[in-house]
């Protein structure tokens, strides 16, 4: 094969690949390629055959089946309820973490802390409750009250746990809201 023949062959190959991709639709080729197809018997033949092949496959795809769509739509509801329940687990877990953190900040030192509540934590806990409408005031007075009664390192750890829990509640609740909307009629 001389260089000119090789060039033609490679041009034919590229055009026939494109015809194959476009199901023989010559109109989807560029102007130079269309011109080539018109003057090249081999490429014209491929274009016609590809178009016929495309039609055969179009017919070979069975018509739409509405029973599949109905079946899927009916099955979505229980799946959504299950997803909602499963998705709530991290929200609940982070709520527990936040509550534990808040209890600790409320002034519960050492081990057996919860059993000592509210005896040891009245001061801090009531400061937190009283300051619900004023987060800054509640935090500062709660921390100040708790700091008077416990080790500062313990207080810091408790504060971190509480904040992590709150952040987790916000994060997971946002995600949960997104995947388990209530606005539907259920």
């Amino acid at each position, binding site marked *: 094969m001389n260089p000119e023949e090789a060039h033609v062959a490679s041009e034919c190959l590229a055009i026939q690949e494109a015809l194959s991709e476009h199901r023989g639709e010559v109109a989807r080729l560029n102007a130079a390629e269309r011109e080539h197809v018109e003057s090249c018997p081999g490429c014209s033949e491929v274009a016609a055959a590809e178009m016929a092949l495309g039609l055969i496959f179009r017919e*070979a795809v069975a018509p739409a089946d509405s029973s599949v769509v109905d079946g*899927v739509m009916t099955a979505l509801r229980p*799946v959504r309820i299950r997803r909602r329940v499963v998705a709530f687990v991290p929200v609940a877990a982070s709520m527990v973490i936040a509550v534990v953190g808040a209890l600790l900040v409320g002034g519960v030192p050492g081990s057996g802390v919860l059993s000592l509540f509210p005896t040891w934590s009245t001061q801090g806990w009531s400061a937190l409750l009283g300051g619900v409408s004023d987060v800054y005031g509640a935090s500062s007075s709660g921390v100040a009250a708790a700091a008077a009664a416990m080790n500062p390192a313990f207080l810091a750890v408790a504060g971190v746990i509480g904040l992590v829990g709150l952040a987790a509640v916000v994060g997971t609740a946002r995600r949960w809201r997104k995947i388990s909307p209530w606005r539907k009629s259920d």
Partner: protein
Amino acid sequence: MPVTGRNEPLSDEKLVELALDGDEDAYGTLVRRYQRRLTAFLGQLVGDIELARELSQEAFIRAWSALERFNPRYRFSTWLFRIAHNLGIDQLRRRRLQTVSLYRTDADGGEVEVVVTALDKDPLGHLENRALAEELHQIIDDLRPEYRELILLRHFGGLSYQEIAEFKDMPLGTVKNKLFRAHSVLRKALADFL
């Protein structure tokens, strides 16, 4: 069907976003958009249109269940077809364990499994031209596996070359080349019908 302000159908990405916000109608649009092609693809994969309907239903339900894990960097179509493909392959493996296979001898003297399909389960059973349906069935069965899968994805699944490249994790050029070769085989084999 949810549409944009200019009455254009919403993109898959937008419909997925709406579905993630709990809009079941948006997901219904996706189901209607892909049901026909997904069932046709699975029908050819498992050789049984009834089973293909069940599997496509299952694929849509699984996709819905896992929608929040869908990575929007990829196309919904390729993700859905991957779920369906895995279901189909699992089904074939299970069926292979449960059934006794029949074999015929091919042109090279090798053994080829014969798939016996009842007409009502034939994925090409709706074609009026039975000769064409049988020929097409045989030719697709005889294709090399790497060509066969690409032909199923392209012509029954209706995926674009780009989507196939993504599905197969294959360069686009390779997909084009392989499909061109597969088409050459099909053009020769179906010459009487073209």
